């Protein structure tokens, strides 16, 4: 379960270009719930994800994950509880390290790292099996440096890395936006399979309205740093793309293109 309690963040405070990124934002995501966050550029989606992951320190307010207040925890401590897939495939993986080493780093996210050998045969076999689920042939490229993979392969690897070990919270930050439509579809299908199989509590930011309609239990629309609209239950199942776009106060070209 994720709770954001009156989160507030102001950039450039007291200056001419002061900007309120999060304006007393409140959000609650139940355990096992899949929330889809939409909103125009500058609505506070990225700030919210950064606040949850710890990359952004709040001016005031609280972040609670499964009942524990994590507001004061640095990024690497929160990593024990949450995993994140970034929009940029470069960001979520270590380019100069091999596929297997990246998998190892992800496996150890929630564990204590020891002075025992990292990549042992048992682990390599397990990684092979998990990667084969993607059907991209990554299981045969465990010793390949990640920088030699395509963007789609890297993003798929990031996803496998993130969902491994069943994090208490999965954050997806427009994770298919930088991919071509076909690859985006593969990554999205893999995401849904993993989230459903592992019943992960998930928060996905997207500009793709079709994804917002098709996936998730609840659509959360942000505007000017707060939740403007929530659609869940029967209403969520019957909503269409034009309905969603109609709710945007600022309609950007990007959203029309994405729909």
């Amino acid at each position, binding site marked *: 379960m994720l709770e954001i309690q009156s989160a507030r963040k102001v950039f450039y405070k007291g200056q001419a270009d002061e900007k309120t990124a999060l304006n007393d934002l409140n959000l609650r995501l139940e355990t096992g719930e899949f929330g889809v966050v939409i909103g125009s550029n500058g609505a506070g989606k990225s700030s919210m994800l950064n606040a949850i*992951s710890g990359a952004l320190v709040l001016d005031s307010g609280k972040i609670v994950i499964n009942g524990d207040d994590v507001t004061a925890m640095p*990024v*690497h*401590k929160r*990593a*024990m509880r949450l*995993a*994140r897939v970034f929009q940029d495939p*470069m*960001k*979520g*993986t*270590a*380019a*100069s*390290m091999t596929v297997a*080493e990246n998998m*190892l*780093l*992800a496996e*150890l*996210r*929630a564990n204590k*790292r*020891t*002075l*025992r*050998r*990292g*990549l042992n045969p048992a682990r390599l076999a397990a990684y092979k099996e998990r990667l084969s689920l993607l059907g991209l042939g990554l299981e045969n490229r465990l010793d390949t440096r990640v920088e030699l993979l395509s963007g789609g392969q890297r993003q798929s690897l990031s996803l496998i890395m993130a969902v491994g070990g069943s994090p208490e919270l999965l954050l997806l930050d427009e994770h298919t936006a930088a991919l071509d439509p076909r690859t985006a579809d593969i990554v999205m299908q893999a995401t849904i399979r993993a989230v459903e199989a592992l019943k992960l509590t998930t928060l996905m930011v997207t500009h793709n309205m079709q994804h917002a309609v098709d996936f998730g239990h609840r659509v959360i629309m942000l505007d000017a740093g707060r939740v403007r609209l929530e659609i869940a239950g029967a209403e969520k199942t019957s909503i269409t793309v034009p309905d969603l776009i109609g709710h945007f106060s600022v309609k950007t070209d990007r959203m029309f293109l994405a729909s």
Partner: protein
Amino acid sequence: MDFLQNTIASFISLVPVTLAQSLILAFVVLGIMIPFRMLSFPDLTSEGAFPLGGCVCGVLMAAGMSPLPAILIALVAGFVAGCCTAFIHLRFRIHTLLAGILMMTMLYSINLRIMGRSNLSVFGSATVFDWVPGLQPGFPASKIVMAGAFGLIVFALLLHFFRTEKGTAVRAVGANPDMAEAQGINVWLATIGGVGLAGAFSAAGGALMVQSQGFADVNMGLGILINGLAALMIGEAIVGKQSVLRQLAAPFVGAIVYYQLVSFCLAAGMPPPDLKLATGLFVLAMLALPSLKRSRGPAPARETVRE
């Protein structure tokens, strides 16, 4: 013909001495490689940590301490120096190179303070090189054996460490610090520890050097960084850097080959003052090679260096 014969003869007679020297300086090359390659933290601390290790070791030996504890204390001093550089970078967001320059400048005064004068003779004190059985102390062979043994131990330990779970995490910090942090790795701890370790190796090199040459000098670090960098480039050109094993072997191979090259140049009659220019041009050429290879287009915007 005569010239060639003379050159080769004097080169060959210098091989053992040069080899002993290069095995000691391999520690400094290691101290340059670890931050540069494993942590993407281009670091200049070694230029100050090397004489720091020498000065600490020299003072302790002059005070009658036995050689091994003197080296260990020098090692700790170098570790602290490296930690300081990393901390300056992380805490105050000062560029790594500038943090290193600050540190090595301050270390110069500290080294002078430690010794109380600019050089100190420890000739005649017991050294670790006396401990090699069956060899007469003071000859290159004992230095080669001792420094080589230390080098092998350090190499084996590092090779094991960088393949462990913790070691992989440290390498991840160099590969992608944001990703490392998101995977639960404490970037501060890994960076401070890693750069500290590098400082410790540079200082150990300085301590061994002092025991080898019989005196400590505050200026003994002058230009050591560029020598080390040249050695590293040569080593990487020979053994590569695609795996942990190769990356760790590069400093040792590079140090051995580089100092033999230098010795050959000197034997061939190159004036010693020109050596730094030649080394600098060589490092420049090695660093420029990839961008020259990449066709005649404009130079790449910039290399990804952590700021």
